């Protein structure tokens, strides 16, 4: 039976090419792998190999022909004894295979008039409260989850024998042993990859980065391996892992140790991104992050580690990811923040109250998935919005929030949204300059006055 040989596509973008040279002639016998012709693409001259065995019955396109469309028959192979002369002349160009019909894009979700927001309390109102530091809360969250699930383990630099560079893992080696609390060499790229691989293999790793600045060495494994594999595998292979550690500026540690990565990780579908402020949230969200079947980037803050908050003493404080918390209700302006930004937001709200301005303060807690409903609901009430974060302005979390509010609550805004951010500079070392580079409470107050026209 005669087989048509078609003009091949020899690059991802090739639509036509030049049949530069035939290396076989009519009557030649070819077998799989023999080079039949040279074809010039837009990028290079390529050798074209035979796939099937047979005899070259007819050459349909002469060498030197330019602009031969992909899938045009260029020759015909026949079997031994078959009469080539009876073959038709050049057949019309075969129809391009798999003509992609433009897929109808899903209609954009209609702007919610009033989003449904989960306002349920995170713990019973009558729970006994106790003052704990963020450090203790994080350690307790890990210890509780390690007690209840043998597959959870902690890996990182100085997490075991040193008891944690910032003492977050204090006592864990004693309780769980060196099989589950593992000191790594200083090799972020490598151990992040090993941890992701172990998650593919059925474990639930917690990876501590001494700081998130060093996670840049590992960001390929976080994004390309951890975040994308579920999608690339058609849902077969997930990656239950938590990457955690301090993020953002500490004090006087200069440019390479002072970056806020919330906006970087926020962009990645497949990742969840958490950035708690209080000790109760640190505990409840870390427990949920460890249980989550997806990769979670959990951004802590060194300055907050030693700060004490009231933590409910309940058996299992697991706070759902993706749910904002209204710290303070108000009517004149909405201030949205997360992580250490909350410190400035809350201080500003206190001072504004003294001046008779009532601010509603929302702690996002989870940056992705983001509880935009909580923000929009609040803006529909206050009609004014200020966002507060420590990171840089261009492509900030606040700029994303601004675009969402513009699209979904434009008619409710009485003033342009202001994003209070860190300054657009690498972090300086000098004490006075560092102070200037960071966001301040005064800047938040000034922004609120601007949007409330005071």
């Amino acid at each position, binding site marked *: 039976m005669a087989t048509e040989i078609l003009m091949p596509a020899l690059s991802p973008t090739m639509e036509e090419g030049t049949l530069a040279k035939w290396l076989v002639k009519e009557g030649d016998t070819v077998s799989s792998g023999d080079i039949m012709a040279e074809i010039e*693409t837009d990028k290079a001259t390529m050798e074209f190999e035979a796939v099937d065995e047979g005899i070259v019955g007819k050459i349909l396109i002469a060498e030197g022909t330019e602009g031969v469309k*992909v899938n045009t028959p260029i020759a015909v192979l026949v079997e031994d004894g078959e009469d080539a002369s009876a073959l038709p002349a050049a057949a019309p160009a075969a129809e391009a295979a*798999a003509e992609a019909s433009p897929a109808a894009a899903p209609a954009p979700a209609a702007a919610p008039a009033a989003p449904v927001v989960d306002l349920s309390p995170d713990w019973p109102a009558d729970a006994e409260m106790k003052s704990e530091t963020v450090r203790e809360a994080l350690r307790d969250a890990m210890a509780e989850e390690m007690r209840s699930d043998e597959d959870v383990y902690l890996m990182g630099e100085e997490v075991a024998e040193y008891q944690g560079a910032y003492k977050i893992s204090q006592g864990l080696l004693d309780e769980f042993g060196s099989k589950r609390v593992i000191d790594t060499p200083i090799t972020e790229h490598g151990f992040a990859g090993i941890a992701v691989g172990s998650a593919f*293999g059925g474990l639930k790793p917690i990876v501590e980065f001494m700081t998130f600045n060093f996670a840049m060495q590992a960001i390929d494994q976080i994004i390309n391996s951890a975040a994308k594999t*579920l999608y690339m*595998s*058609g849902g*077969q292979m997930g990656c239950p892992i938590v990457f955690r550690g301090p993020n953002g500026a500490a004090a006087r540690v200069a440019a390479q140790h002072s970056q806020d990565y919330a906006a970087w990780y926020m962009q990645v579908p497949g990742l969840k991104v958490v950035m708690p402020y209080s000790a109760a949230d640190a505990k409840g969200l870390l427990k949920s992050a460890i249980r989550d079947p997806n990769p979670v980037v959990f951004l802590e803050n060194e300055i907050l580690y030693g700060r004490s908050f009231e933590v409910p003493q309940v058996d299992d404080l697991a706070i759902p990811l993706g749910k904002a918390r209204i710290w303070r209700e108000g009517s004149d302006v909405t201030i949205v923040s997360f992580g250490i930004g909350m410190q400035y937001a809350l201080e500003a709200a206190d001072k504004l109250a003294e001046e008779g301005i009532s601010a509603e303060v929302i702690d996002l807690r989870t940056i992705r998935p983001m509880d935009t409903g909580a923000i929009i609901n609040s803006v529909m009430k206050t009609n004014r919005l200020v966002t507060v974060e420590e990171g840089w302005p261009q492509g900030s979390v606040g700029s994303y929030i601004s675009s969402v509010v513009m699209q979904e609550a434009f008619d409710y805004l009485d003033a342009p949204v202001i994003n209070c951010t860190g300054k657009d500079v690498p972090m300086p070392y000098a004490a006075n300059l560092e102070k200037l580079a960071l966001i301040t409470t005064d800047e938040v107050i000034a922004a609120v006055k601007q949007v409330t026209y005071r």
Partner: protein
Amino acid sequence: MAARKTTKKPNVSAEELKTYYREMLLIRRFEEKAGQLYGMGLIGGFCHLYIGQEAVVVGLEAAAQEGDKRITSYRDHGHMLACGMDPGGVMAELTGREGGLSKGKGGSMHMFSKEKHFYGGHGIVGAQVPLGAGLAFADKYKENGGVTFTYFGDGAANQGQVYETFNMAALWDLPVVFVIENNQYAMGTAQARSTSSPDIYVRGEAFGIPGEIVNGMDVLAVKAAGEKAVAHCRAGKGPYILEVKTYRYRGHSMSDPAKYRTREEVQKVREQSDPIEHVRELLLSGKHATEDDLKAIDKEIKEIVNQAAEFSKESPEPSVEELWTDIYA
């Protein structure tokens, strides 16, 4: 392929030889068909063919036990076929169809199978090396006796994360076989132009990881070396390196004209060291099979590949809803 320090060939039965012949031929015919479908525009993007390297995966799969894991780079079709993944599912993934192993969302470079313990299919050169050590970490943690085959090329061998991984794998005695598929070219760069030492496995010595060179055009030599490496890992002695000298006949990807080597060089390997011809000769000269027996196998393989190709064309494109699924578990 000159091979030094290759493990001695074992005795081998006719059935075993026929199995290797069949499995290697399946990979070759599958890849030729993939190349053809690419030429027809049915397969898009990047497509890296495994032709010439068939003995590597077939030999190592023969040394694996049920439950052992494998992970590799983007030149992955051969590995998937060798561990028993469905040719139709692989081909339909290449054509980006619903019936593909990743529902058409991964493509040539990204396929996975929990059932066959195949962990991808990774597109970032070298990234699969720590991932493979991580799979071995999980096996050791769970004390299940499993071994992970972590494949990478001579090009990936220059990535820093490979040596970060060697260090931890040796430090923690992880049951991982590092398989360096040395096909001598990192895309268009010959090994001598990219790599400071003529042999790569020797780099393991710095970490205390034993290793050896294997003739990757000889499936029996690969299998024997694989058995030795696996036994080492399973005995709790930590990782092992196999530097398997092999050769790819086609370009790096479909759009590579391969001008960095001569046609004669490729032709010489094809004529003198082809791994399938090698087994074919063993079968015929040892009177284990007749020409007709082998023709029957050829026909059977051709049928499997044609069916896979048909399936890959007939399977519909994924539904548009699939755009939004599998982002979160």
